[in-house]
């Protein structure tokens, strides 16, 4: 699914865009978690890029994405985010979006559209 379609579907907001071409990127897989060690454990052997979906609105979700070579992070539940997050996303070159939908709603909608 294209990032531009994901953004529209989830009514997501841009927090930081590291690469303008990101909207044309196609994600077939997503991984949703609030536990960063789970992401590290389960995505360590993943060779393709995965959309990281998290309710963890602090800089560690970005650090985890950076460690795993993931380009895009989607924050759910519309919680206030750390003031340093946009700055950190820029430093780590990660595209960061936020939606007000819950993680359950986000996963359901993306799954319905074919993402796994």
């Amino acid at each position: 699914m294209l990032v531009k379609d994901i953004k529209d579907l989830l009514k997501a907001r841009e927090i930081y865009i590291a690469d303008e071409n990101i909207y044309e990127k196609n994600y077939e897989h997503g991984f949703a978690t609030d536990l960063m060690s789970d992401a590290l454990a389960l995505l360590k052997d993943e060779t393709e890029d995965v959309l990281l979906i998290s309710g963890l609105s602090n800089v560690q979700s970005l650090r985890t994405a950076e460690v795993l070579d993931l380009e895009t992070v989607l924050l759910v539940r519309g919680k206030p985010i750390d003031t340093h997050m946009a700055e950190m996303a820029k430093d780590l070159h990660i595209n960061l979006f936020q939606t007000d939908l819950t993680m359950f709603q986000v996963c359901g909608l993306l799954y319905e559209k074919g993402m796994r």
Partner: protein
Amino acid sequence: MKKVYQVEKDNYEDAGKASTDIKRTLKTLGIERKVLKAVAIACYEAEINIVIHSDGGTVTFEIDDDDGLIRLSFDDIGPGIEDLELAQTPGYSTASPKARSLGFGAGMGLVNMKSVASSFDIRSSKEGTHIYMTFQ
């Protein structure tokens, strides 16, 4: 090449800085992606452990100019791990509610480190915990 990083107790904001810097350094040296990722994962987990569980410590990164062997050492100043075997059980964690609320404490840290490193050694006493890993 050798680099040493200080890691502060309870400083969640900076946790992961060493792993980011080490990954960048390795990238400039042309190290393959798979190795970069393994080093970054192991370093991040170990760094987070120092922040969460210890009174502070250091991360030491070295790469051998001749054979390219990457060495990571993590040395903290205590209070140590009571039961090392239990600590290496998947899912076992003694992380505080604060650490858990920040996304840590899944009990996979040591397990993840062991699974990505070429070699892994851990020693612990009340004076501190020392982890040594290599990657090739």
